[in-house]
Structures are given as C-alpha cells and as structure tokens.
C-alpha cells in the first residue's frame, strides 16, 4: 500500500479528504454524556482500591522498597 505523502496533496485534495472524513463522522451514533460519565465513575470505583498510586501500599508489600540487609563490598 503506498505511503500517502501529505506534502504532495493539493489544497483541493485536502479539502476532499476532509469532506469525506466529516461525512463518515457525522453518522456516528453518540451515547448520552450522562451515561458515559457514570461509566467512567463506576470503572474508577471498581479499581481504585487496588490503585497503588492512589491508595499507597504497605512498606513490606512494596516490591520497590529498598533492599535491606546484606553488605556492601567496595
């Protein structure tokens, strides 16, 4: 499949592309924003308890904690 070189497109080509694209997008079925917001909230709520960056983690469960013990050989 040929690579489309945007630099080679004339303004007319670009205008035609834009109209074709808009004709596709105008047909989209759009869900109600209220429903979408609820879904975002529900999704967050379902996972937030496991979200370490929000809830934190006990030091002994933290895989990134400083490795203690042992000795440094220099």
């Amino acid at each position, binding site marked *: 499949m040929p*690579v*489309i070189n945007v630099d080679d497109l004339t303004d007319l080509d670009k205008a035609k592309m*834009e109209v074709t694209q808009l004709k596709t997008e105008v047909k989209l079925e759009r869900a109600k924003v209220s429903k979408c917001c609820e879904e975002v909230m529900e999704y967050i709520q379902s996972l937030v308890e496991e979200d370490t960056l929000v809830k*934190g983690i006990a030091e002994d469960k933290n895989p990134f904690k400083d490795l203690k013990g042992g000795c440094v050989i220099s």
Partner: protein
Amino acid sequence: MGEMEQLRKEAESLKDQITAARKAVADATLPDTVSSTAVVGRVQLKTRKTLRGHLAKIYAMHWATDAKLCVSASQDGKLIVWDTLTTNKVNAIPLKSSWVMTCAYAPSGNMVACGGLDNMCSIYNLKGKDGNVKVMRELAAHTGYLSCCRFLSDSEIITSSGDCTCLLWDIETGTQKTTFAGHLGDCMSLAVPGDFKTFVSGACDFTAKLWDIRDSNCTHTFSGHESDVNAIAFFPNGNAVITGSDDATCKLFDLRSDQELITYQDSSIMCGVTSIAPSLSGRLILAGYDDFNVNIWDSLKAERVGVLAGHDNRVSCIGVSTDGMACCTGSWDSFLPSFSFKGQDNVMRLCKQNKQQYL
C-alpha cells in the same frame, strides 16, 4: 461557485451537524456528575529508584507488560532495558542512529523497537539464540521522523510520524500493511488499547484521532486543543482518551459520546505537556510538562492533587506500570538532586548520568 468553495461550504455544514449531534447528547457534564464525590487526597509519591546510565537526553520510555522491566531511549545512541526492581541494566543496545525519539516494548517481552530522525522503526530481538541483541528489522517507508511506535504483537507494530501518517507494519516481511492518513500535521504520539483493535493518535493539527486498525478508517476526530497534541493515552476502560498539548492543558475525550468531558488546566501552568499516563483505575492522571514537573490530576474533579518535582529539565516521558504499582519518569536533565517525599508510592526516575558511564 468554484469546487474549493463548494467543498469548504460542505465541510462547514457537516461540522455544524456534528456539533449539533454532540450537543444533543450532552445531557450532563462530568463536573455535575461527580459533584458529590470528594477530591482524592493529596498524592505524594516517593522516589524509590533512580535509573542512571544514559549520557544524554532521555526521550522515551516504555514499561514491559511484566511491570518489572522497562526500556528507555536516549540521544546518547542507546536503548537500555532496565530491571526496575534492582536497577540493573539487562541490555544496553547501541543504535545505528542516535537521534532516537521513541521506544517500545513488545507485549510478549521478546522485542523492543525504536526510531527517530532516521525515519525508520528498528526492531530488536531480545531473545536471540546466542544472547546478543541484534536488529531484526528496519522498517523504512515514512518520509518524516518517527515520533512513536507501539507493538500489537510480535508480528505487528504501529508507528506515527512527522510525515502526518501512521503505519501498520508486518514485522516479519518488513513491509507496511496499512496507512492511516488524515492528520494535517505531524503525528506526535499514539496509544493502543487493551483489545488492540483500534489506536489513537495525537498530532500537530491540534486534533486526536481514533482509528480502526483493520479497515484503516478514522472513526472519531477530537478537536478542542489550541496547539499541538504531544501526548496521548487511553483511559484504562478503553472508552476514553486523555491528551496533553502545547496549549498547557490535558483533556479527557469520551469515545462513545464523541466529545470532550473535561479539561485539566490551571492558570499557573503555562507550559506544554510532553507526556501523559493514567493510574491503574484512571482516578489519577500523571502529566509531564516543559517546566520540569509532573502534575498529578484527580481525573474526575479536575484538580491538581500532587506534583513530582525533582527533574532538572523537561520531563520527556512518563509511564505507569501495567499493575499500576509504579510510575517512571524520564527527563532531559543531567543529574538528580537528592530529595525526599513523605509517602506512599513508587516513582522511578530515568536521568542522564554526569559521571563515568558504567554498564
């Protein structure tokens, strides 16, 4: 009426119809929906590890799916694969071209990829028989710089380019399968959701686009940013997209209602966003900025709930590990001053080393 004028009028009319259709479903706003939700408590992340080893600006990093390894790319001409738990370098891969702008880890862990001003995407096999990491493929067809790449599998990768297009490649044959054209400005970044059926791209035409991988069509175009969209990521549920722009804001766009739900901005923030990543649940959005900081946003309340300061130069990349346990930031800075945060969680920093390189 000339053809150009006709097309212009047709475009305007279609845009008006789309605006009206979006308005028709806008029966609520996110701020209203979450009005009774409390803001997340102040987030203070603690730097746990510093990954030192690069000798020049770090441009990109990407976590492996095992949430332990990650790959970083620097204009010192190296890709480094890190074990973030030990800070050991698992691989240090010398690149033919040092002008690298992006890197990616394959979901399988078998390969990494990178590219930049060489206009190519180079694929490296990490699991070669003799243990040496070699270039497996050089994917060349873009006529502009490679800004981002993401594997769909060991056999397919998507690239975005300064030539305004994105390409889907067959890695085995080294050829491009599909061209995604439509952006009118450099494509700056891309993101792939969990189901690998679509991807989103952000570009210098100020828009973000959602593409169907199989039929190559752009299904959604999101406008609203007033400058280049530099960074893009999927919201973890796959139904929304977060973007970061040179206009100093981040936005949350919902795919199903085809519109912006909220903007993350503050009058005190006047510099561009370079990188963006959601936390595991999506409640936090971490965004890297040109002013050397990472701002942490409460995604629902659109309030800043934390800052990661401590880099000495632009934060170029950010990534949250797949299990959500850690966030890694990469920067153009030369060294990391010692500092401490009180607190909970995990931040790793990739920074340039100003001392002797050791591998």
